[in-house]
């Protein structure tokens, strides 16, 4: 970033003790626990005493097929949810920035699921997706369509939860896109109109100029997907078997089992993973932004 000079001048306007309260809060609630987590991940910890065992927990984590399946599922989940959110919410945002009459109402409706508690959404959808008496399959059956066992079929459970996640997260993504589209100067649309086609407007105006919004949506929903927990837990608890286990549910289960050290090691793995994936992504997006 070339604009480094500005933050520096801001830094100098305040004396250092000004930062002390924030630093204290950050230190006590973030830095110290993180450091402690790194330490406890190297121990066998019973909450009463901790035995130092080196990297055993990590070795265990990476050698366990079920834990690795959790890792794979996490990726699938993050890619599917962030991908679908972009694909669905961009056209929605375009629709909702057009001169539609019911725009306000529709915006409200699309944003509504975001406001509902995730746990409530999970429980509701778990019963909607019940295979024989659930609403979804009742409707599908009435239409003569196949009635899949959404959450009971091991090959399907993860995707069913991902779909609900998309439904719930689409509101935020759409709002970000709306903001992105509205920030494009009208001149560009004028020029596109001269070209005459909607496709031109989409391909050469909205897509490149709302790129910031696209990146934000991808990044936010990808991170959200990597650390998803509440929906998975309320809908399947990682089941059936290990079929929809993701990193966070695996970590939570290790914690439930009383394997505190192993569970903390899982959290460190998650932390490193998010950093490794998201940092380059962010760098790439930032560079792309500068090139614009």
């Amino acid at each position: 970033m070339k604009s480094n000079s500005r933050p520096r001048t801001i830094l100098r306007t305040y004396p250092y003790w000004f930062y002390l309260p924030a630093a204290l809060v950050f230190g006590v609630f973030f830095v110290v626990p993180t450091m402690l987590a790194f330490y406890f991940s190297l121990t066998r910890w019973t909450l009463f005493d901790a035995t130092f065992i080196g990297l055993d927990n990590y070795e265990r984590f990476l050698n366990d097929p079920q834990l690795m399946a959790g890792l794979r599922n996490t990726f699938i989940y993050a890619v599917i949810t962030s991908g679908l959110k972009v694909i669905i919410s961009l056209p929605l945002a375009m629709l909702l920035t057009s001169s539609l009459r019911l725009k306000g109402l529709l915006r409200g409706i699309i944003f509504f699921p975001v406001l509902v508690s995730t746990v409530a959404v999970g429980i509701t959808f778990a019963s909607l997706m019940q295979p024989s008496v659930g609403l979804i399959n009742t409707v599908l059956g009435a239409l003569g369509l196949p009635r899949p066992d959404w959450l009971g079929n091991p090959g399907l459970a993860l995707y069913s939860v991902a779909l609900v996640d998309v439904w719930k997260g689409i509101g935020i993504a759409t709002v970000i896109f709306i903001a992105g589209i509205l920030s494009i100067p009208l001149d560009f649309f004028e020029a596109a109109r001269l070209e005459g086609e909607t496709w031109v407007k989409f391909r050469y105006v909205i897509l490149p100029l709302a790129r910031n919004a696209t990146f934000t949506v991808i990044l936010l929903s990808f991170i959200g997907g990597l650390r998803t927990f509440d929906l998975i837990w309320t809908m399947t608890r990682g089941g059936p078997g290990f079929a929809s286990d993701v990193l966070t549910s695996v970590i939570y289960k290790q914690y439930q089992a009383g394997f505190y050290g192993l569970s903390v090691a899982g959290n460190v793995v998650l932390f490193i993973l998010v950093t490794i994936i998201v940092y380059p992504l962010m760098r790439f997006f930032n560079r792309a932004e500068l090139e614009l």
Partner: protein
Amino acid sequence: MIRKFLFLLLLLVLETSVAAAQDAVTLTYLVDDTQNSQDTAQALADAYMAEHPNVTITIETRPGGTEGDNIVKTRLATGDMTDIFFYNSGSLLQALNPAQTLVDLSDQPFIENIVESFLPTVSQDGQIFGVPTGTAMGGGILYNRNIYEELGLSVPLTWAEFEANNAAILEAGIPPVLATFGDTWTSQLFVLADYYNVEQAVPGFADAYTANEAKYATTPAALAGFTYLQEGYEQGWWQPDYATTRFEQGLALLANGEVAHYPMLTFALSTIAANFPDQVNDIGFFAQPGTDAEANGATIWMPAATYIPQTTQGAKLEVALDFLGFIASVEGVDAITAAVAPNGPYLIVGSTLPDTVLPAVQDLAAYIDSGNSYPALEFLSPIKGPNLEQICVAVGTGQMSAEEAAASYDLDVERQAQQLGLPGWD
């Protein structure tokens, strides 16, 4: 002078004891949320409060399974446990570090009232921590006797006979075996209730297993339980929607004769008795069959117990100890029997079962009386891998083979043994 002093002293003693008796004490009693446990706890609390008007015992519930284990562990570790709580005996208790977290009861007079064979399941380092609350249970197969009568089947003594029965039931258009994987803990019975057969085939498996010398994957008799789950999936024994069916929904299916068998603990009977009082007499029990008809017998579960955490002190501790004494008395047993249909024998000296016990409990009692019963592994060894339920669901839904599952469970067991700091596992 001395007389006056003594008089004053007497007065003081009287005064304090009277005051202590009248001081209102409230105890909170944490139990799991099954109907059976709640009713048992409530019956005990009501009977005790009737005799001790100054005491109030409120029941607090928690989820069962690993989620409940987690709540209990965390509350104990953070000093946030209720005044008394209800929890499994055996290996699950060992995982609570009882010597560091619970009040030692070994000096209490009421320990004498407890059947001696129960005590090891609530002990650690020579200390005793719990009193049995409720009845012992059988683990095996609950079955619908109407279906057996209609199809002219008889109780199987070997697994081969069980398979033949299942084939006949399937042919009659009834799902032979109920699977309720929506409550994952229910998936473990084929493995856990097979322990009588494991012990017959490999005497002393429990000790070798605890000492890291015997494994599920390499002991054919122990592997069998996982094989049964795989077989159930492959042969299509389960009812529709088995992957998401919950425990209580399953009990309805069994009571209504929509499935024939349910691998389960007999504690489910009291829930059936509460929800389906007319059908509960149609339910019978048989031990999970093994390879040898001559060596047929039932696996027994010890009752769960009531414990006092070390955070309970002072007047509350005194009342809590007195309440535990009540639970470990014949009056306590009678209070439970009046409210909850017994699921098996009590482990309190001098207690008796009423003449009107459920048919399935009579079936279970027949195994115990004839000496054909053996405790489940979790009461013989401190180690039980926490992932067993999830692994069993994975096998029962066709995602994992029996061999993979056994190997995976061995790994889980190793982890638990190391966490417990047992010798021979490092």
